[in-house]
């Protein structure tokens, strides 16, 4: 149990150090950075993926895009993509890092939005048309609410991905909690590595809980009752 002792020793050293709580390299600042980068990437990905998924799911055209992007996003190594963009575009701003973050988080949202819309009971769709709703109205009032659990699942999966990738992106110079891990590892400062890792894990779990709450609040109860999860 030696490692357990050193583990808690490092934790105490990291969180007990007053210097770790203030300034631009302090925990609050790094936490905020991590949140900002992750949120920026996730929001941009949602802005691209949700409308595209709705369009493809509703019109039934362009299904290939969904399938290919899903497979490609899983197969593409995040670290490789990050390094490639930074080498190609330089590291003068955060964009060379944000672009791959967005690219990797589009597919989960796209796939689930598409599947959500396409999976809506055709009778429900027909009934909506029968009641005199038009294409756009059917989409907005019937298809989206029914597909919402899956759309949110896609966003949650993307959020997981983004939080993890933002951590890896510290290797290519991005700020955020990954800095503690990357810099600590490079300088053999294991208190920083362990403390940073625990912070990131907690951050990821909080994000999960928030998405679970969001789902409970936004999904219509009539829909969630007969929702078959995954």
């Amino acid at each position, binding site marked *: 149990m030696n*490692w357990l002792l*050193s*583990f808690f020793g490092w934790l105490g050293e990291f969180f007990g150090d007053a210097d770790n709580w203030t300034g631009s390299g302090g925990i609050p600042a790094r936490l905020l950075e991590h949140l900002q980068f992750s949120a920026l990437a996730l929001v941009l990905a949602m802005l691209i993926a949700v409308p595209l998924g709705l369009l493809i799911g509703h019109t039934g055209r362009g299904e290939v895009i969904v399938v290919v992007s899903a*497979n*490609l996003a*899983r*197969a*593409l*190594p*995040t*670290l*490789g*993509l990050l*390094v*490639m963009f*930074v*080498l*190609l575009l330089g590291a003068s701003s955060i964009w060379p890092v944000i672009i791959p973050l967005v690219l990797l988080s589009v597919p989960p949202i796209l796939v689930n939005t598409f599947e959500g819309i396409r999976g809506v009971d055709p009778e429900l769709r027909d009934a909506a048309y029968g009641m005199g709703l038009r294409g756009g109205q059917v989409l907005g009032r019937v298809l989206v609410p029914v597909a919402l659990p899956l759309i949110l699942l896609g966003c949650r999966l993307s959020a*997981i991905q983004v*939080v*993890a990738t933002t*951590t*890896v992106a510290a*290797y*290519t110079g991005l700020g955020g909690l*990954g800095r503690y*891990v*990357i810099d600590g*590892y490079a300088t053999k400062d*294991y208190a920083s*590595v*362990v403390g*940073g*890792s*625990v912070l*990131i*894990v907690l951050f*990821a*779990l909080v*994000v*999960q809980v928030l998405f679970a709450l969001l789902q409970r609040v936004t999904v219509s109860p009539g829909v969630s009752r007969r929702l078959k999860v*995954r």
Partner: protein
Amino acid sequence: MGDGPPSIWEWIGRNWDTGRVDSIKSLLTDHLTMSFVPILLALLVALPLGLACVRWRWLYQPTSGLMNVVYALPSLPVFMLLISVTGLSQATVIIPLTFYGMAVLIPAVVDGLNSVPDHVRQSAVAMGFTPLRRLLLVELPIAAPVVLAGLRVVAVSSISLVSVGALIGQGGLGGLFTRAYQNPFLPPVIVGIVLIVALALIADGLLVLAQRLLTPWVRARKGAAA
């Protein structure tokens, strides 16, 4: 290197098999080990656990809850935290990847087994199948497409995720990315990405093939319907 940086093909030729641990060939071997061991382990663990979750229903809720949490853990901090236990070995990457794989495969096994129609199960019982034979000859084959679909996801994402291990010096082909970043040079990155995506596509293709061989009735049925 008098005349500028080498082209990508020259670079590959020069680094393919240098006999050192950072040659492309040896990175490729490491990569294969570190991705296939977790895929296999995840399947071996997920099958009995999934069976248990179907057999004892109350097990499924806590198991899937735990697996959701596991799936949400970012890989790099998990590698880092494991270092203090496993040291800088391949196990540091293999263990977390196994758990990520289980997080996908356990629900797949459960869904697959739940997709066995009740009348099929009852027919098997009526025909005198013992529980074990029923499982092996009736239920698992029917569950196979769902399990294999999960396995495809696991295979492809494991192969790409191994590369993150490069940040602790155990990333297989991911080592090409860190090397390229340290002395800024593009060819290793391109080679790394292409090889990893190619490996993922090959693994995916093999699993699709396995699916066809293991479940011939799926295609036969489709053919009959057409």
